[in-house]
């Protein structure tokens, strides 16, 4: 049992350790996923910022085509020279020139809107901004990006007008020694198309926002764009983020327990107006140890060492079964066989030496128990007794049993009749190989066949109640019984090959008397019945208190 128990403990520890390790692995995986997501978001945010800047730079180069067009420069100068009103001719010629130049630009590099502005900031002509159609006094000169262009700078800006616009400007020169004749302004609308294009080029899920609302969004395949709607609810607390407030880029924030988001302000006027963009990612996380099964793809499963896992499981099971067979099944089987042999009468008692561990102790206890029962005169029979099996060969003539029955000494010589009340089973050795106690001279042998009649076998057997006699008669009977026991004992010792030299009745009587008093005192018995038997090849004496 020790090995089995040790194995159970080992398996328990291993199972607990496995659960613990899986929990740690889950936590580490989720933490690593969150860290990777944070790094990826920071990278996404920078990539988007770089893209916006690079895109603006490249598109500002496209403005050169407008700036060097002779008609554009000429009619912008003409408009600038007319402080009171923009000449209609200038409007018409500029519009035609803008269309011509814009048509020469590759479609994917064209602007959504182009404006030609004179020195006063008045929009002389524009393309793609239908909102301003018919507004003769439409101007853009107050914006710093336009003012800079009118003063000789190329730069970008992000304006939040009716929508978000990425704007680039550059001056248009007519006379190199004078102020620029005007400026050309190219704008891209930051709409879903722009966001999708940006997302496809950067690989990031991105949403632009302004005035506390999502303005546009784009996401790569596999990322639900609807997730980006969650940023609206998160933006209310965004201004509390010191990094966002000071540096224009927030820490990585988690929305709804899963979605990782990092916010960045857009450069330009949009910075002051709270306009910006958010990049978002879903973290690589599992919701528990079993989440690995869902998260693992075919490649992961291929890399897992399944044969070793199976071998460990089989080995553990085999060891457990082996220990179980060795310590449980096999001893029980042996015990079962021995018990069956005992039940069949093939043996008188269990052989403790054939058992191991606790079974040896059980066998020994069972043997002792059986002896105790026998010493008490046997227990109630549960069925017809096979007398021959229990007592061995029964002699033809009645002979003295190893057990004499207490009672009236006067009746002792009398043979027990068939009507005698049931008596206890004689404490005779059941093993026929063991020597039987010899018959005692002077004492009639009990009629065992009559004692154990089949009709009384199922009833509780009681010792016959002795007739009340005087104390003298009782003492004499007891002495006579002790003499008989002495003779039986001496005879049994001789049969067992033991020496009886120096073994006197007086010593024997002293021993019996002492034992008699001790047992009567301890158990409150009426008297004590002594009998002889063979124990481990030697004659032994057994004392049985009689309670009735």
């Amino acid at each position, binding site marked *: 049992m020790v090995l089995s128990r040790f194995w159970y403990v080992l398996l328990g520890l291993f199972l607990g350790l496995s659960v613990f390790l899986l929990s740690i692995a889950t936590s580490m995986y989720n933490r690593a996923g969150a860290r990777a997501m944070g790094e990826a978001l920071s990278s996404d945010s920078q990539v988007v910022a770089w893209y916006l800047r690079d895109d603006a730079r490249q598109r500002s180069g496209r403005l050169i085509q407008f700036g060097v067009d002779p008609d554009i420069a000429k009619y912008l100068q003409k408009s600038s020279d007319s*402080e009171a009103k923009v000449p209609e001719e200038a409007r018409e010629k500029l519009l035609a020139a803008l269309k011509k130049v814009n048509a020469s630009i590759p479609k994917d590099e064209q602007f959504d809107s182009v404006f030609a502005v004179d020195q006063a900031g008045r929009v002389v002509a524009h393309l793609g901004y239908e909102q*301003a159609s018919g507004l003769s006094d439409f101007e853009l000169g107050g914006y710093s990006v336009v003012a800079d262009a009118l003063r000789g700078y190329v730069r*970008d800006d992000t304006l939040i007008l009716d929508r978000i616009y990425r704007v680039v400007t550059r001056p248009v020169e007519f006379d190199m020694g004078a102020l620029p004749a005007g400026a050309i302004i190219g704008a891209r609308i930051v709409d879903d198309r722009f966001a999708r294009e940006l997302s496809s080029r950067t690989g990031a899920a991105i949403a632009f926002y302004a005035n506390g609302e999502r303005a546009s969004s784009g996401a790569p395949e596999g990322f639900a764009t609807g997730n980006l709607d969650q940023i609206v609810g998160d933006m209310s607390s965004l201004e509390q983020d010191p990094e966002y407030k000071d540096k224009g880029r927030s820490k990585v924030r988690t929305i709804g327990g899963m979605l990782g988001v990092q916010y960045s302000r857009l450069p330009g006027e949009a910075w002051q107006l709270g306009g910006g963009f958010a990049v978002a990612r879903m973290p690589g996380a599992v919701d528990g140890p079993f989440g690995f099964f869902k998260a693992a793809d075919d490649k992961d499963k291929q890399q897992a060492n399944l044969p070793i896992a199976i071998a460990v499981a089989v080995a553990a099971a085999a060891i457990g079964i082996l220990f179980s067979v060795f310590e449980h099944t096999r001893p029980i089987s042996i015990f079962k066989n021995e018990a069956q042999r005992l039940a069949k009468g093939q043996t008188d008692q269990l052989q403790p030496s054939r058992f191991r561990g606790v079974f040896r102790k059980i066998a020994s206890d069972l043997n002792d128990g059986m002896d105790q029962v026998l010493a008490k005169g046997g227990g109630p029979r549960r069925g017809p007794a096979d007398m021959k099996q229990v007592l061995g060969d029964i002699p033809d003539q009645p002979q003295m049993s190893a057990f004499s029955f207490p009672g009236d000494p006067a009746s002792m010589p009398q043979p027990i009749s068939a009507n005698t009340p049931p008596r206890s089973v004689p404490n005779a050795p059941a093993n026929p190989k063991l020597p039987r106690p010899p018959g005692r001279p002077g004492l009639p042998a009990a009629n065992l066949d009559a004692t154990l009649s089949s009709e009384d076998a199922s009833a509780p057997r009681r010792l016959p109640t002795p007739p009340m006699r005087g104390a003298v008669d009782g003492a004499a009977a007891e002495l006579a019984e002790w003499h008989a026991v002495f003779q039986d004992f001496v005879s049994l010792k001789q049969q067992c090959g033991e020496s009886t030299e120096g073994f006197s009745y007086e010593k024997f009587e002293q021993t019996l008397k002492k034992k008699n008093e001790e047992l009567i005192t301890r158990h409150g018995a009426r008297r004590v019945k002594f009998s002889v038997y063979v124990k481990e090849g030697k004659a032994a004496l057994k004392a049985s208190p009689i309670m009735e």
Partner: protein
Amino acid sequence: MNACHTRSGSSRIVGLRRSWPLLLAAGLLALPSTADAARIRGRFEGFRALQNPVWAEAKDPKNHGYSFREPVPTVRAEFRRPFPHIPKELCIAAIAVGPQKAQPPVLIRVGGGRTTPVTIVVTPGTRLTFQNTDPFKHKLFGVGIKTFAPGDTGPGATRDWSVPAAGVFEIRDEAAPSLRMWIVAEPNVAQAAYPSMKGEFSLNVQEPGDYVLQAYFAGKKVGPATPVTVAAADVELKVPVKVNDKASDASAAAEDKTKATDAATETKEGAK
């Protein structure tokens, strides 16, 4: 008083029109000139040393106004400064000796990232009508002015506000950070006007008498106060009104000195 004039100096009575030059004229004109009116003609000098505060702030990389800003080498360095558009930003006012009567409503045009005019000098109590000329809404408010709280003004819509008392008031727009306007409420102002791109101005003064010419820029006085006595005849100022003080000159000189490295630095910081 109550009249500003156009860059040509001719005054006209106009109402609110849809055409922006007419609207501008309507905003700038308060009273018609009469046959008795006298003109004061003059010229500003050094106005390119002035700096539009909005544009000057915007070019500072710390304000994150751009991701790149680079000078075009073919544009002369003297032009690469955030000097103001003086026809809207530099106001010349004739200040009388005593208080002047109240002015009729003045139209202020809101569009293109600024107001027209940017700085205005009026008497207290003058009603200003702000008209949105952009195709999108604005949200004007007075800085520290309880009677001018932020409010939406849709495309083409107007919003009125009366100047409560003497002083300087600043108007901003929550939807356009570049929009900043200054209203100077001066009880003795008789007339105000704006110069042309070249700095030339002309004031129509209704009543003969002694006046002081004072230029205002971004809500502040710039240049010296020039005393003028107006009689029946027009007055031609022989000395230009210098609006750049020493500090402005020093600043301009310093800017010229650093212009060569300015662009590179801005580009680097912008990139950061």
